């Protein structure tokens, strides 16, 4: 059976499973649609949250991000997991006790203000729509690569499948498909990683393999990797390069941003009890950690693999034999396959028939002595790492097919969660809470389904015509979540006296400064050439990159809110009583619909 047929069977079977689950888990009420009737087992919710959270970026890109930077990009690992501690300790249990359906619901009611609700809805829509573009394009690319259809056809297939299970099943359908998607993606990610770890270190667990001895050289894997990188003129893998302050703030921004992302928060509305919300955050992190502790091993091992593939010979000293790299004719099949996609490209600049791979900016001595003409691996898209892993490890075809299904599962599960957050913000927060409070249950459910349909259509359109600034906008999404929603929710729970004037000012200050800082360096509305300062470390305020500013925005949000609170009257007694009641778990059993 050829690879194409295999891919078709595995991906087709996974899609049939998702649609089957959707038909089984149809939503009949708004409580079903928004919160799966709060009947989801906390462990199941943990797995669903993990799939919801781990997007195409986590599945496909993260190992590559770490592989090509090393220690410096540990920020992604700590930032994207540390946020769950904040969720479990500071937000999830109280929001579950509050017992509504959406994040703007909480902010609007707690701060007794339609303005606060509106600010929350607007930030939610901007960050979720931003995020969903990346998922849809990711799904389109995965389709076109593995199923040999063009990217737009792939995108339409993906949208149709999401449409079926998200519109039909709402949160209930999404939850159980996300559980299935988690299983697909984690199996797909782990199998190649285990085999590569076995091949390089003889260790079964990649987490152990990363810190074990490289069988071939007898040196610790990371020592060997540092050594060969330095030999080729690259920075060592384990070293700390760059600003410590920026690394701290970037990690902090990712943590706070993660805890403030609405599509993650609403998952905790689906469990039966407050104690389940705490437990569920723990399980979510366990399921996420299964991938996140493997990713750095995949990154380091793949980087070493690529280098030793190009320089297969070793000198007696243990160093790479830089004079005798692999010839173009001998390169492995996976390189040939990926060259066809354009994501990997070589150029025989020296015309000597062998591949010269090194850091041009800091060439090794031998390069100058022998007059090498430059680095000849001219393109290496970081996303290849995970996708090509099964081929690099020479695993059978079904594993390659599984990676295709896994990548799609990661993209689709996140897209579905985001679409639900978008549609509930429109049908519940805008239509039901602000425009037409008298709407019937049936009417609201219909409105939710129609807005979901619109959200999918919009996401598909944006996926087909991605704005040129898609990558930068993700920074904006995290910045918004960190600087607006997280501080507002936290003060709503931990400061009884916080009033609407303080919260609204705080959110606007946090949002305003973060957006301003990002636009100053990345251009107004990301239009190239409109940035007021060049986006280089020298220009950044205190060396803080625009991507790291979310944490600063959050601090400014807190500060502004408390200053305004000190000058105005504290929240009225009935609101303070409401805060008292969400602080204790008792009485959360009944879901309140309003």
């Amino acid at each position, binding site marked *: 059976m050829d690879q194409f047929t295999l891919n078709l069977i595995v991906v087709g079977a996974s899609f049939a499973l998702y649609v089957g689950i959707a038909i089984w888990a149809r939503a009949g009420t708004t409580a079903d649609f928004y919160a799966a009737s709060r009947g989801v087992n906390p462990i199941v919710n943990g797995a669903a949250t993990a799939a919801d959270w781990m997007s195409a970026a986590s599945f496909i890109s993260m190992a590559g991000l770490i592989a090509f930077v090393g220690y410096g990009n540990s920020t992604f690992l*700590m930032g994207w997991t540390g946020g769950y501690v904040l969720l479990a300790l500071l937000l999830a249990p109280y929001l579950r006790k509050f017992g509504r359906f959406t994040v703007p619901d909480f902010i609007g009611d707690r701060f007794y203000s339609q303005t606060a609700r509106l600010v929350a809805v607007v930030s939610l829509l901007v960050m979720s729509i931003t995020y969903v573009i990346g998922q849809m394009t990711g799904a389109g690319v995965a389709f076109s690569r593995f199923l040999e259809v063009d990217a737009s056809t792939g995108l339409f297939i993906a949208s149709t499948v999401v449409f079926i299970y998200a519109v039909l099943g709402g949160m209930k359908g999404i939850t159980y498909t996300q559980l299935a998607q988690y299983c697909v993606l984690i199996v797909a990610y782990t199998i190649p990683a285990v085999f590569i770890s076995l091949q390089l270190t003889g260790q079964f667990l990649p987490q152990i393999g990363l810190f074990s001895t490289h069988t071939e050289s007898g040196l610790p894997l990371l020592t060997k990797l540092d050594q060969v990188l330095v030999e080729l003129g690259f920075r060592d893998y384990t070293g700390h390069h760059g600003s410590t302050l920026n*690394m701290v703030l970037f990690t902090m921004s990712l943590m706070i941003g993660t805890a403030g992302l609405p599509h993650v928060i609403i998952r905790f509305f689906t469990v039966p009890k407050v104690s389940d919300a705490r437990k569920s955050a723990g399980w979510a992190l366990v399921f996420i950690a299964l991938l*996140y502790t493997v990713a750095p091993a995949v990154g380091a091992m793949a980087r070493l693999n690529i280098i030793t593939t190009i320089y297969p010979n070793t000198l007696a000293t243990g160093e790479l034999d830089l004079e005798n790299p692999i010839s173009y004719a001998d390169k492995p099949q996976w390189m040939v396959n990926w060259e066809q996609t354009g994501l990997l490209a070589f150029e025989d600049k020296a015309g000597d028939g062998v591949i010269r791979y090194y850091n041009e900016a800091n060439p090794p001595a031998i390069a100058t002595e022998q007059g090498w003409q430059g680095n000849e691996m001219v393109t290496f898209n970081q996303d290849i790492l995970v996708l090509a892993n099964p081929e690099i490890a020479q695993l059978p075809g079904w594993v390659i097919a599984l990676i295709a299904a896994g990548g799609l599962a990661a993209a689709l599960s996140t897209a579905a969660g985001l679409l639900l957050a978008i549609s509930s913000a429109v049908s519940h927060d805008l239509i039901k809470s602000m425009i037409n409070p008298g709407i019937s249950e049936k009417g609201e459910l219909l409105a939710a389904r129609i807005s979901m349909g619109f959200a999918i259509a919009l996401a598909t359109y944006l996926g087909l015509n991605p704005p040129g600034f898609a990558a930068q906008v993700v920074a904006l999404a995290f910045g918004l979540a960190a600087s607006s929603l997280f501080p507002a929710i936290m003060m709503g729970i931990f400061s009884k006296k916080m009033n609407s004037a303080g919260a609204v000012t705080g959110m606007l200050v946090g949002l305003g400064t973060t957006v301003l800082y990002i636009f100053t360096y990345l251009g107004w509305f990301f239009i190239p050439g409109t940035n007021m300062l060049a986006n280089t470390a020298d220009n950044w305020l205190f060396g803080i990159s625009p991507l790291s500013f979310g944490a600063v925005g959050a601090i400014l949000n807190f500060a502004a809110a408390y200053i305004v609170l000190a000058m105005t009257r504290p929240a009225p007694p009935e609101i303070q009583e409401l805060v008292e009641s969400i602080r*204790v778990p008792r009485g959360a059993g009944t879901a309140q619909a309003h």
Partner: protein
Amino acid sequence: MSDKSSDAYWKANIRIITISLVIWALVSFGFGIVLRPLLSGIPIGGTDLGFWFAQQGSILTFIVLIFYYTWYMNRLDREYGVDEQ
């Protein structure tokens, strides 16, 4: 529940949250980033303990923290009679 025991419950909660967040910051921002030079003398698998905390240890500690907090709060909820029956 009286206001007094309600206050005590909340104070106990804030205390455990504070302790947990100190550990949370120590293993990530501390051992993983800022204090890494201090740990450079402790070798582990070709690198140092700080690197391990940045790429593995912090994540594992986060998991332990959440489950410990869950267990602790369930006990506290029962103790103060505010658990869900």
